[in-house]
């Protein structure tokens, strides 16, 4: 550790950043893989089924008790899934618009990971300088929204590139849906920042560590944000861009193999990013009601990260659970909900919050 401490601060900063990026990326990827497993298992249990319980590497059967147990739990399933995605034939239909067909999956997956850059997933690790956030931006939340708003291009271009009607309809639906809910989402957050007085996400957590979780102060904002997050990640009950039963998969109908996997990855990475955002904005990030100060040691730092991840997992399960609970909204219902319910509600919320801030907190 010593030679690390003795390094030039810039080099140290870059080194830590690279490590953080690597770790966050890796963790997120495995999170994605295993949230798919959780999704399959939870859905199976909700539907009185067993779920994946077969896949196992050959050596797993030689491990007594644990091997079969993990196999039945489906622990090895994500590996097989990943391998399958890699090894499947990457099929490009002849009639697609090639350039867009190839870049659309990348555009879909990149914003999801970029969003994670500003999330403070822990307090500090090791020494107080090592903030557990990749980029501690002052306009963190605006950055997030800006990046998230770019995520729609992946889907729209995928729909356009496929050059066939179902993906196309998926793409069109997606663009309208994303814009509509982005407005509601952005407005719901405004009231939060009226209270906090800063756009920096670390400051938001700092505020919550002392002032209590914002979910209690801004329940309406949280609710709108939560629903909008479902819409933004194209999760049920708002998965109209892909809706299997109407659009046979929507924008990714023509995709296969790794390109399809990227969309898949993007969707789950978006879920993770949304969960992280909700934890940060409304549930105190890495803090707990009695743990509010930045960690001083390595152990405390890890504990904070653990708390953050645990909260995030809870939201992931919520995402998954909701999917198996609701039927899909109709498109006009979706638009109605976004424009005529949430936006006025969010505006009213901002007004009330502003008034409260102006007259009470003064």
């Amino acid at each position: 550790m010593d030679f690390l401490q003795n390094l030039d601060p810039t080099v140290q900063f870059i080194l830590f950043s690279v490590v953080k990026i690597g770790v966050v990326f890796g963790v997120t990827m495995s999170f994605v893989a295993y949230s798919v497993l959780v999704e399959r298992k939870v859905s199976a249990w909700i539907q009185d089924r067993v779920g994946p319980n077969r896949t196992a590497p050959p050596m797993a059967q030689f491990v007594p008790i644990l091997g079969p147990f993990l196999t039945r739990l489906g622990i090895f399933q994500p590996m097989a899934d990943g391998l399958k995605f890699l090894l499947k034939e990457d099929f490009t239909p002849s009639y697609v618009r090639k350039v867009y067909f190839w870049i659309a999956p990348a555009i879909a997956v990149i914003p999801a990971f970029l969003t994670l850059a500003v999330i403070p997933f822990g307090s500090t690790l090791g020494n107080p300088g090592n903030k557990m956030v990749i980029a501690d931006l002052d306009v963190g939340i605006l950055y997030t929204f800006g990046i998230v708003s770019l995520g729609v291009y992946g889907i729209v271009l995928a729909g356009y590139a496929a050059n066939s009607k179902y993906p196309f309809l998926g793409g069109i639906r997606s663009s309208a849906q994303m814009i509509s809910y982005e407005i509601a989402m952005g407005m719901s957050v405004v009231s939060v920042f009226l209270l906090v007085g800063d756009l920096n996400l670390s400051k938001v957590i700092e505020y919550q560590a002392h002032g209590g979780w914002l979910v209690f102060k801004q329940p309406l904002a949280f609710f709108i944000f939560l629903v909008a997050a479902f819409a933004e990640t194209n999760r049920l009950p708002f998965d109209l861009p892909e809706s299997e039963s109407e659009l046979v998969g929507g924008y990714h109908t023509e995709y296969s193999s790794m390109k399809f996997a990227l969309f898949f990855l993007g969707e789950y990475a978006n879920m993770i990013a949304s969960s992280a955002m909700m934890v940060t904005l409304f549930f105190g990030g890495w803090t707990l009601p009695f743990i509010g100060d930045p960690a001083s040691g390595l152990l405390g730092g890890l504990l904070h990260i653990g708390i953050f991840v645990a909260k995030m997992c809870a939201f992931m399960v919520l995402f998954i659970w909701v999917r198996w609970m609701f039927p899909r909204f109709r498109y006009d219902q979706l638009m109605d909900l976004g424009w005529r319910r949430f936006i006025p509600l969010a505006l009213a919320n901002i007004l009330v919050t502003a008034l409260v801030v102006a007259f009470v907190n003064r």
Partner: protein
Amino acid sequence: MPEFTDLLFYAFAGLTLLCGFLCVANPLSRNPVTSAMFLVLTIISMAGLFVLLHAFFLAAVQVLVYAGAVMVLFLFVIMLLNIKEEERRKMNIAAVGVGAVAVATLAGILVRALWHATPLATTATVEGSTRTLGRILFTRYLLPFEVLSVLLLVAMVGVILLSRKELK
């Protein structure tokens, strides 16, 4: 690292110009979607320029509003109306002449303005802080701000009025 920021500036500036050019006059493709995508790239490169100016708020808002919302709507309209590739048409000499005059005039004004401008401090007061920006907007530029808001409101009311059939 001044050299590094300079490099970034040239990169972003070049990208902005290139993408802007490809947006309006792409020699390879006259697909409206391609043009729109280059416009998005232009906007994002400009956001990069803003970041280099330490105007993070502007950068973020630029991406959020223009790339994230306006251009998506553009795409939406292009795809919904199923606009086909534009046909190459013959150059109209009169139009080219008028265009050239217009561009020259605009360029002249810009050059003249920049020539006579006194450069501000490079580290501007708007540095990063949203707070400062907001304060200026709501004090010094309150009237323009409110006028603009009213203008937008009027536009919104007009759109609603136009799009509602039964109100006609």
